[in-house]
Every structure is written in C-alpha cells, then in structure tokens.
C-alpha cells in the first residue's frame, strides 16, 4: 500500500539569517596577575609577556553557569528587540557546567521565560560558540527555529589547577550570547569547521570521572594543556582556516572591519594576524587583556566589548574564529548587528 503514503511536509526557512543582538556578562570578582603569581612562582611581567593578560574575572558562588548565561542572553534579547517567548532554541556551549545532566540550556531557557524552547548544550570547548552560531544559522535558514539563542559560558576557575604553570594564569570565567534570526540580507557567512582528534590529548581534562573516583585521593580533573604544540597549531593552522572562512564568504582582508578570534592568548592573535596579513585598518579583539581566556565565552564577550568601545559598528564585517580542545575549530564571517 506504499502508493497511499503521504509525502512528508518539510520546514522551510528564510533565505538568510543574521546576528540580531549581542550580550555579555562579566563576573564581579577582578583577579589581577598579582593574585595568581605566587602559586605558580611567576610574575606579572612574565604573564603579560607570555599572554597579554593583566587581569581576569572569576565568578563568585552566586555567579553560576546558568545565572551568567541568563544575564548575557537578556542583554542580547533586549538589543535584538526579541522577547524570550519568541525564542525557539537555546544552544549553550560550555565545558564547565559541572552537572552531568540535564543540560544547562534547559535551565537557562526556563529562567529566561521561553515557551519551552528546544534547549541543549554542545561540547566543542573553546570552539563551541562558533559551532553554535553555525548550527543556529542553519536552523533559522532550515526553518526549525525562527529565533535561536547561542550562549558561550564558562566557569573555568572551577576546573583550573591554580598551581599549574601552564594554565593557571590563562583561564577565566564569563558568558556571552547572541540572538540569531531571519534577515533580509546575508548576515552569517559559510562556516569552515573541523576537528583534529589526532591531538586529542593536547588540551583535556586530566582524568575521566571514573578514574577520579577510583583514585585514593579524588580531586577535580583539572584542565591540562601542552602549550607549545597548541600555540603552533593555533597560530598557523588556524590562520589558514580563518583565511578559508574569508574566502568562502567572498571577503578580502582589506574589506574586513574586525577580527575577533577566540581570546586564547594575545601572542596567538598576533601570529594569526601576521599570517593573515591583516591591514592596519582591521580592528582586532583584545578582550583577553582584562578578561583572560574564557573558552566558549570569549568570542561573544569580545564582540560585545568591541561594540561598546565603538570598535565594531553595525554593518561591519567581522571574522570570527574559535579553536580549542579536541582539537576542534570553527570560523565564519558575520555582519555586526
């Protein structure tokens, strides 16, 4: 009786999607290098020279993954002029929501007052936000969501070993969010993304939870990182990915207004900018100087900062690229809302 089976109806969406609003939440506790140096036998000068970081922010107990996300998302929604009830999907990129299940996204969607929006977390580490923007772009254009919220949020201070010389001065906390929705003109270029699991061990949690619990002295499986290989990969391989994202969007370095890489390390940003031969006219995100490396939150926080400082104006073309543990990466050119 196959002849009587109906052909399925499918969704269709608008031709183009765009970022409609950007929000950020910066935790209240300012942590200067002076507070970090003793435990790693280092100095303010060394940290600044190695990373560009002067201060970072750590969340208090009250500033949770959920509360910081909600604050960032509300700002993004306000700016977009979208009510939470219009949001169809909430995507949260994080590696530091320490409850295994349920996802942070469901709590955030509820707290925001969505009407039972689809909500889930994605695990793509520092690259998570740009993965989320790619998903949201395709959802809106595919018709499965009219408005999607993409949030990057971290409390890396919970999972960083304060005595580890390779990571203690780098990682920090915060949240950033964007609203993605329909647009009359293209607002999000093609994503260039991928993974390199050969280097799965370059950045990772020290142990999995079963090994933690089996040990005599269980302790948090902090992040570990092989600094120099990661620096090499990020500075050179990622510059090529960034170039591909420009090419796929049909934008030259000269036409670009803003470069907003994951705020991993200012030295990586410098090396990428050099490899990309970015002209002087391109304004480069440097939020890391007083925000530290906030993993999935860094790109939207840096974008918000550039908008607030007048360095990113509505209609500007911004190249986003994020990269991290996995190794995972994603890049796209966007129009600043």
């Amino acid at each position, binding site marked *: 009786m196959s002849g009587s089976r109906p052909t399925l109806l499918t969704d269709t969406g608008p031709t183009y999607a765009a970022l409609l609003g950007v929000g950020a939440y910066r935790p209240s506790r300012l942590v200067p290098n002076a507070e970090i140096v003793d435990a790693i036998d280092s100095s303010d000068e060394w940290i600044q*020279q190695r990373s560009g970081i002067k201060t970072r922010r750590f969340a208090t107990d009250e500033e949770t993954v959920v509360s910081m996300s909600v604050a960032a998302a509300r700002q993004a929604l306000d700016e977009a002029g979208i009510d939470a009830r219009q949001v169809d999907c909430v995507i949260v990129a994080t590696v530091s929501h320490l409850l295994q299940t349920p996802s942070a996204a469901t709590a955030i969607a509820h707290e925001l007052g969505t009407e039972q929006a689809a909500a889930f977390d994605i695990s793509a580490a520092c690259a998570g936000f740009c993965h989320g923007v790619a998903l949201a772009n395709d959802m809106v254009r595919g018709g499965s969501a009219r408005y999607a919220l993409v949030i990057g949020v971290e409390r890396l201070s919970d999972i960083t070993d304060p005595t580890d010389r390779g990571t203690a001065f780098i990682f920090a906390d915060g949240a950033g969010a964007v609203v993605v929705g329909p647009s009359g003109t293209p607002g999000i270029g093609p994503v260039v993304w991928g993974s390199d699991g050969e280097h799965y061990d370059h950045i990772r949690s020290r142990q999995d939870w079963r090994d933690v619990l089996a040990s005599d002295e269980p302790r948090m499986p902090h992040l570990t990182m092989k600094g120099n290989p990661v*620096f090499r990969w990020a*500075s050179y391989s990622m510059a090529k990915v960034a170039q591909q994202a420009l090419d796929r969007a049909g934008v030259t370095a000269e036409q670009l207004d803003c470069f907003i890489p994951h705020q991993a390390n200012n030295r990586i940003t410098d090396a990428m900018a050099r490899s990309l031969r970015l002209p002087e006219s391109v304004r480069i995100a440097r939020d890391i100087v007083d925000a530290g490396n906030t993993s999935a939150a860094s790109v939207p926080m840096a974008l918000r900062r550039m908008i607030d400082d007048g360095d990113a104006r509505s209609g500007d073309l911004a190249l986003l690229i994020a990269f991290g543990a996995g190794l995972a990466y994603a890049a796209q050119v966007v129009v600043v809302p």
Partner: protein
Amino acid sequence: MSTEEIRAALAEIVNEVAGIPADSVQLDKSFSEDLDVDSLSMVEVVVEAEEKFGVTIPDDEVKNLKTVGDAVAYIERNRAA
C-alpha cells in the same frame, strides 16, 4: 646555501618574530639566554624556518636547538638529506 647564508636568513626570521637586531643573531648565541627568545617565539621561529629552508623540525628536536649554531647545523644537515 652556505652556513653564513643560512645564519643570515635565520637571523632575519628571528628579527621579524622577536624584534631582535639581525646582526646580534650569531652562531654562538643562545636563543633563550643571550637573545631572550622565549619558548613561544621559538615556536614561531621554527615554523618560519621550516617554511624558508624546506626542513621539518619536530617538537622534540626544538629543545636541542639551544644556540643559533645548533639551529643552523640542524638546517644544514636536514636540507642535504
């Protein structure tokens, strides 16, 4: 390329990456002690050198390249191979 040509080309890279005057990049100079090239800058020097001289310098090898002379000798050996 002669030893001196390799040294001079490497010195240019060190100058570009770390801002150190090229004429101070001499064979007997230690990258970290004398020239103040830190480990991240050293990664950049290595990547640029690989491109310039058509050699591969694995991460494990980098720690053996303590002086400019070590790096020049490594490049000479591996270019020939």
